[in-house]
């Protein structure tokens, strides 16, 4: 009997002692900051490390000329971000031992939503004519959080890039626009997961198979998340099923929102606080154009007609420029380079606010892909 009692207690003891302890292995991450070219290192940079699996974010403030140390970070894959009002940098880091890494700051606002691809050239039909209905803009969530597309506005700059920008005098404070359309929604209707994107198409149809389309078009935009629908000329633009962008400013619209097919339209994503239509009531600079402060610009791309160099945006928004050299009807687009592809499939595109370095050009359009 004592033997049986002893066996039971030994088994019970064994079961109790088999309880597993979670062993959390934690490491230290030291981040050294390098100042942006020609700038000094500021003393108010926030450094965050976000764990890609758990989503937890660890934050500290870097003091000038010192590195920032984040202690006791669980092992894993992290996105390290450094930013203040003026500079930003982002890098992905693997933390499986105490690691030191360095980030070089770049001047410019860290874009959460960025323009990932613009296809404006149009394609050529079998008969040799131009087909421009397959234009699209792709907006990508480059951050590590889910963002909402509601209320994000797409704007086209007022200067066509073929001659001197007449609005250069205000470029250090504001951008001048001639068109603005906004994503509909009350603020939580259109979530965009980190590393995912949405497409705004001129016409959200399968351009390759549509009866009035172009079999030689490089894109099928049937699943585009949004489209442009213009009603100035009744009956000329078809309202396809995709949700329509809300028109705010549209002085030069013909039968649809058409981007300049040789690259004359520079694009900027902006976030206008409050009622967008009310903003345009009070901020027109002339009968047809309005201005928007640079602080509200999420991302700007200096799309330029090939062989021209008349910049519209301030260097802090986009220090470079990009063109499709093959020209109109070529079926080619401009697309950002990939900065990192994370193991969970999330893509981070390169955004140094310099489209000369950040963009590939004359590439085949790849909606939702790269």
């Amino acid at each position, binding site marked *: 009997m004592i033997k049986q009692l002893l066996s039971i207690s030994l088994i019970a003891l064994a079961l109790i002692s088999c309880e597993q302890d979670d062993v959390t292995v934690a490491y230290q991450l030291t981040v050294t900051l390098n100042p942006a070219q020609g700038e000094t290192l500021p003393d108010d940079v926030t450094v965050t490390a976000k764990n890609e699996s758990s989503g937890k974010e660890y934050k500290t403030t870097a003091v000038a000329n010192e590195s920032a140390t984040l202690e006791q970070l669980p092992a894993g894959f992290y996105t390290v971000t450094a930013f203040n009002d003026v500079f930003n940098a982002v890098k992905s880091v693997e933390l499986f031992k105490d690691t030191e890494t360095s980030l070089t700051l770049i001047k410019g606002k860290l874009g959460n939503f960025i323009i990932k691809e613009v296809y404006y050239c149009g394609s050529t039909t079998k008969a040799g004519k131009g087909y421009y209905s397959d234009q699209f803009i792709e907006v990508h969530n480059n951050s590590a959080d889910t963002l909402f597309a509601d209320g994000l506005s797409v704007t086209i700059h007022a200067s066509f890039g073929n001659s001197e920008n007449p609005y250069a005098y205000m470029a250090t404070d504001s951008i001048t626009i001639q068109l603005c359309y906004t994503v509909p929604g009350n603020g939580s209707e259109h979530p965009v997961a980190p590393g995912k994107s949405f497409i705004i198409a001129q016409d959200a149809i399968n351009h390759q198979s549509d009866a009035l389309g172009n079999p030689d078009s490089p894109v099928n935009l049937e699943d585009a998340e949004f489209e442009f629908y213009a009603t100035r000329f*009744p*009956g000329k633009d*078809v*309202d396809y099923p995709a949700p329509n962008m809300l028109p705010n*400013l*549209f*002085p030069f619209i013909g039968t649809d929102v058409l981007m300049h097919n040789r690259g004359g339209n520079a694009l900027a994503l902006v976030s206008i606080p409050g009622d967008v*239509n009310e903003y*345009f*009531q009070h901020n027109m600079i002339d009968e047809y154009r309005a201005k928007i402060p640079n602080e509200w610009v999420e991302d700007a791309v200096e799309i330029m007609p090939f062989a021209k160099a008349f910049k519209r945006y301030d260097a802090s928004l986009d220090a470079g420029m990009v063109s499709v050299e093959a020209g109109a009807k070529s079926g080619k687009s401009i697309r950002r380079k990939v900065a990192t592809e994370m193991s969970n499939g999330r893509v981070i595109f390169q955004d140094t606010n310099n489209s000369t370095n950040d963009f590939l050009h004359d590439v085949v359009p790849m909606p939702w892909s790269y």
Partner: protein
Amino acid sequence: HPHRHFSYLNFRAGVGQHSQMPPLAFLYPAPTYVDLVSLMHYSNNADARTVLFTTHILDDTKSLKPASNLKKEVGVDFTVYGIHTQITFYQEELKNAFSQEIDYTWLNYKKYDTNGIATDSKPDPAQLPYHTTYYLAPKGQVNNKNRLEKTGIEYRIDFGRIHPIYTDIIVDGAWKKTLQYKYINEYAPAVVSTNQIEAIGHYHDQLHSTLQLSQFSSKLHLVTHVPQLRWVFSGSFQFIWIDKRISQFYPLQPKALQTEEGNRPFTDEMASQPDYTRFALKAKTDVKQSPFLFSSNLRLSKEIGNAVKLSVFVNNFLNYRPFYLNDGNLYERKNNTTNFGAEIILKL
């Protein structure tokens, strides 16, 4: 002997009127068709696609008057010291001239609500709710509102012949001024942002703009006629001293705005409000003055036998083709390139 200096004096005067009836295309223009979308339902299923248009046919015409031009002219010819001078002063007024304007109409149509209709099913308008909405339709219209005034002085001075070189010297030219008046009746400036109210501005035929063209030119003719050699050499040299174009737009406000609901008066406060400021037309003056322009042409004619006359000519033989900035801010060249040719006249 005063009459030897002043050997000839003649006065002349004239008046004339020219009237022109409007052509049939102005009196009975083709109707204007306006197609408005009452229902648009796109589906990837081709059988379910539906579009319904409401078409308005605008077919009213205005009665037109004939355009009439009244010209009055007075002139004097006199010869002093062998120099024969002719001066003519004229004044013309063209009334009720034909011009084009845009008239606006609010057209109503039903707009069906297809919310709730599945993409792949065909909507039936008889079952759908609708509301009535309005479209601002422009329509071209001919009227009699153009007015033109012309004033001018023409002169011709024949200095007579310089016998030793068989040459006649003649100077002729004119100063003329044309004034054109444009009136504005209805105008609906484009809506460029969503909060702007669409409305027809009623300006009630106020004077919108005037265009004044004035020019002063002289032409020097040198005609050398040598009967012994049976040749005539003529050179003409034209000088356009002044060539001015003044376009003037006047500041105007509409008297009333017409929305789909009806008319409302346009007040002075509205002219500075952002929603209505586009109806208040601004004053603008644009003066384009071309610099001095010179052109020169030469011609040589020879009679051969009794029946043949051969001429050789060169136009703009100095090839003076200066650059001028035109109305569209583009550079253009005045005067044709040098060109030359020959003519034969046969008397049969």
